[in-house]
């Protein structure tokens, strides 16, 4: 009896040691995953719909279709945006991640640099139907130039200027502004009686950096030089970001309270007529859920300076979500089958029309369901006057640091502190100096 207890205790210790080793030593050095678990897949979907529940309702019927076709069961987990990057980082560090996952397309190069994602070379693309099926601008936002993409595009979006038709008519404005001068004039006219010309999501770091990027392009600023070194505080960048912050600071066409918006209050303000314009990507589904009638608003491209051409006429970043395969997957073939399924014409049509986004797959985009006036506008922006955020390894740090700098500047403006070229430059210099050397 006693001996057996000793044996049991020893066995327990041994078991613990083995488990510990198994947990700790998971660094898989091979390239590309295996196929040791061919019947299941784990999929991390980003939160695209109005709620996580809503996403599950949208995706689960599609996943069942996939299971019927292939016999592979997909375990779905919808991850909120605020957690997604950290979850991916944790999975990368531990090697224990999902098989297939969504990434924000702007993170592509940063996550590519970790080496955790399966590269899509010609052969891999061949297995999912070829690279040529996708819009070129969306492929350009799937990894650093000159490298095999780390992901494939799944949903695409572009920024547009959403405007309230009734408020425009009431103020005697007959068309959406196309240049910043027109925009200023219109926004001033619309800002009265506690209503504002524009609403911005000032507390939201990613939203800030997306606009910083577009305004930067229009002012001739690139936030990284050709060798990938950060240059956040160039005079052009200062000018661009001041233009954005001045909506609150100098022009006062956006409410000071916008500086702390970070939970889509901007969309509510627009839907309830507190603000006449917003610059947003694929707002349709959300506005509808807030009770706004699609006939009540129009979508135009984001304004540019009069007569601008080339890069200075960029009106949006290439926004969207990419689909990546985790290199450590235990079901490589199944993962690729799943990617092929999700990027098939049929699924692209179903999912993008549900979420109000644009299919990055050319063939699917031709479907009449995407021929609404607002999607046509956004599609046109995406195809002709958009640019991907810098596809460099330090992109994700650029997003958080410059986005935070804009947030701080807007907070200062809202509190009535002056925003000058110098204060803008100081914030940007500080952001740049926090970049890790690489």
């Amino acid at each position, binding site marked *: 009896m*006693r001996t057996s*207890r*000793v044996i049991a*205790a*020893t066995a*327990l*210790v041994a078991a*613990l*040691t083995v488990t*510990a080793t198994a947990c700790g030593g998971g*660094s898989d*050095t091979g390239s590309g995953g295996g196929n040791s678990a061919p019947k299941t897949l784990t999929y991390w979907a980003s939160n695209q719909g109005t709620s996580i529940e809503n996403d599950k309702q949208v995706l689960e019927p599609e996943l069942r279709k996939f299971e019927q076709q292939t016999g592979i069961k997909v375990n779905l987990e919808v991850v909120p945006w*605020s957690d997604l990057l*950290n979850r991916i*980082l944790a999975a*990368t*560090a531990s*090697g224990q991640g999902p098989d297939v996952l969504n990434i924000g397309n702007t993170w592509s190069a*940063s*996550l590519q*640099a*970790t*080496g*955790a994602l399966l590269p899509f070379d010609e052969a891999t693309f061949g297995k999912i139907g070829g690279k040529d099926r996708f819009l070129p601008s969306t492929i350009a936002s799937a990894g650093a130039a000159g490298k095999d993409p780390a992901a494939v595009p799944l949903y695409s979006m572009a920024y547009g200027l959403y405007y309230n038709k009734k408020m425009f008519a009431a103020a005697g404005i007959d068309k959406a502004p196309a240049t910043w001068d027109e925009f200023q004039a219109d926004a001033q006219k619309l800002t009265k009686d506690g209503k504002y010309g524009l609403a911005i999501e000032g*507390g939201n*770091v990613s939203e800030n950096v997306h606009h910083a990027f577009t305004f930067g392009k229009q002012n001739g600023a690139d936030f990284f030089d050709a060798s990938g070194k950060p240059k956040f505080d160039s005079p052009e960048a200062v000018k661009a970001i001041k233009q954005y912050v001045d909506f609150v600071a100098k022009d006062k066409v956006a*409410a*000071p*309270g916008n*500086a*702390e918006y*970070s939970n889509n209050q901007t969309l509510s303000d627009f839907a309830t007529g507190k603000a006449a314009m917003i610059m947003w990507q694929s707002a349709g589904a959300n506005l509808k859920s807030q009770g706004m009638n699609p006939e009540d608003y129009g979508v135009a491209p984001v304004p540019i300076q009069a007569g601008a051409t080339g890069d200075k006429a960029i009106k949006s970043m290439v926004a969207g979500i990419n689909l990546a395969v985790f290199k450590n997957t235990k079901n490589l073939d199944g993962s690729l089958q799943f990617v092929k399924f999700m990027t098939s014409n049929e699924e692209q049509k179903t999912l993008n029309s549900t979420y109000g986004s644009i299919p990055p797959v050319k063939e699917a985009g031709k479907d009449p369901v995407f021929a609404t006036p607002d999607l046509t506008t956004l599609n046109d922006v995406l195809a002709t006057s958009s640019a991907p955020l810098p596809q460099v*390894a330090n992109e*994700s*740090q650029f997003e*958080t*640091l410059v986005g*935070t700098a804009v*947030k*701080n500047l807007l*907070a*200062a403006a*809202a*509190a009535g502190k002056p925003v000058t070229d110098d204060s803008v430059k100081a914030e940007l*210099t*500080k952001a740049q*100096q*926090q*970049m*890790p*050397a*690489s």
Partner: protein
Amino acid sequence: MRQRLRRLRHPRGALPYLLLLPALALELLIHLVPMVVGIVMSFKQLTQFFIRDWSAAPWTGLGNYRMAVDFSAPVGQSLLNSFWTTCCFTVLSVGLSWLLGTAAAIYMQDAFRGRGILRALFLVPYALPVYAAVITWSFMFQRDTGLINHVLVDQLHLMDEKPFWLIGDNSFTALVVVSVWKSWPFAFLTLMAGLQNIPRELYEASSMDGAGVWQQIRKITLPSLRPVNQVLVLVLFLWTFNDFNTPYVLFGKSAPEAADLISIHIYQSSFVTWNFGVGSAMSVLLLLFLLLVTAVYLFLTSRRRDADA
């Protein structure tokens, strides 16, 4: 007989140690290993290129530490700023929580109608899940739609214009308010338990000698509570100094400068800018600081008790 005894004793001698082994192994696994890993990381240049296999990251020696404490550059400067902010925050929050807790515990010592209900009410913040409670606070602190501004500006007319609470300089006040709200019930609970041990006769005797309430508190209550307070203040200090949930839920990943607590700051340095080496170095420095403060505190308080005895 003797031989049999020895045979019996022998396995009993080894068994306790063997049974302790799992606990020891787990302790090592859960506490020591991550700590050592963290210390090793702090000497490495750990960025996204090496996160998949951090042991391959190049050594940088004291580079990360040098960067963290170079107070003339932004990284060091903001760390120093965050350190002072955290110190002020901790002193205010622990001080106010302790004061409130003590006052409430003394007040609740004597039985009166409704004491039970009040006691239960006081413990509500302690019973609520931190996350839900702090989110509620963040709603109340919204500038345009929040309850706080509604009461302060619209109802009491204490201010002309609605201030921001979640951005800018006021964010520090908001942080202290939520933190005190969250931690004073613990002080209250602990001190209430401590008060049970003070013999009632002491008060009766002293009041017969003509001592007032203040004198009783100063001469009887506080000295008797000293051992409880010693632990309470230390625990509150450590919890408050390291608090992550409150600022994270209130402000998100990048806190306003005025409320940039060290825990959030380190989180941001490692996970938001993906500079895990520097983040680890900051964590090690924080650990050393907390160890030092704890040691000095324990040394001082135990010496004072020895002197009293």
